[in-house]
């Protein structure tokens, strides 16, 4: 379960018409859901793509799809999973379509010769750069597991992989990040 999903009751009530089909989400309910979800979804997309403008674009597209699909509302947890899965798919489509990975690496390389940054900016830049050295799927796995607190089932749903593969994929992603951190002298000492 996504860790940040402890929610007050009102949104959990499913609105249904007499025919049993879910009601289209009205603006007030959408706004509530958006305010609870958009921040963490944007952070996820930003870490995944490394580009604020792209994250903005994908965030909006995710919510457009969400409103168009009007997924059956079982619970907010369900909706949240739905939107994270949609956002992940959109981000992966984006990588495939524009080969953004390469362009961003070039942009990062260019920005290294730019004006001096504040310490906070340097930290953010270094961390983003380290994270961008991972593959998109590895980034998504790590963010969902460590920041969103998603379990293997949620991750498998978000990334469209089998639940039993998540353990192996996550292990590899952590190993790769661990190696990167070790190489940069950032790995913590973990005493057994």
């Amino acid at each position: 379960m996504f860790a940040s999903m402890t929610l007050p009751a009102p949104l959990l009530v499913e609105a249904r018409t007499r025919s049993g089909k879910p009601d289209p989400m009205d603006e007030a309910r959408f706004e509530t859901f958006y305010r609870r979800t958009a921040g963490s979804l944007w952070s996820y997309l930003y870490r995944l793509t490394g580009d604020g403008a792209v994250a903005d674009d994908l965030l909006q597209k995710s919510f457009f799809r969400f409103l168009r699909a009007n997924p059956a509302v079982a619970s907010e947890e369900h909706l949240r999973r739905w939107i994270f899965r949609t956002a992940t798919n959109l981000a992966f489509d984006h990588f495939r379509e524009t080969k953004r990975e390469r362009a961003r690496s070039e942009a990062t390389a260019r920005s290294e010769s730019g004006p001096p940054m504040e310490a906070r900016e340097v930290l953010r830049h270094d961390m983003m750069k380290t994270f961008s050295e991972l593959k998109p799927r590895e980034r998504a796995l790590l963010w969902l597991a460590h920041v969103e607190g998603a379990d293997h089932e949620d991750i498998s749903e978000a990334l469209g992989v089998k639940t039993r593969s998540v353990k192996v994929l996550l292990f590899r992603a952590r190993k790769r990040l661990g190696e990167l951190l070790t190489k940069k002298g950032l790995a913590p000492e973990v005493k057994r």
Partner: protein
Amino acid sequence: MNHACRREAEVVRAAGQDRWTDELRAHLAACDDCMQAAMVAPWMERFSRISDREHLLPDPSIVWLKAKLLQNNADVSRASRPLDIVQIVAYAVVAGGWAALLTWRWEAVKTWLAGFTPTAIVSNAARAESLSMSFFGLLFVLASFTVMLALHTILAEE
């Protein structure tokens, strides 16, 4: 085994907050997955906290409005799809009609066109008999239909 270690979440939390118990440390010694998780958890914790809050998210009412506009556009294009299909069929019918008509009386048309000069029109007027009234009738219908289709296409695009 492909199941997640049931202590993984606990380990991630402990590593992120640097709050270890002896029991969890002992568990790390026996669990490679948790060891890997513990290696990266503090960094991921810091990474998740680097500020990106100066970024302003789009207002929900704007997102709602845009989504509704997109939905309306999608509805319009869905509704006009049958008309598009009819238009394509009409193009095909007109093109086929011209091809059939010209193929049917190509020799006569060629002769008629060859003498299509002001003097020849007058002197060879009799030769036009080789093209029947039904041909000219069809020609008129097809030409009218083509003009209508062209006008419809132009006006629809505008």
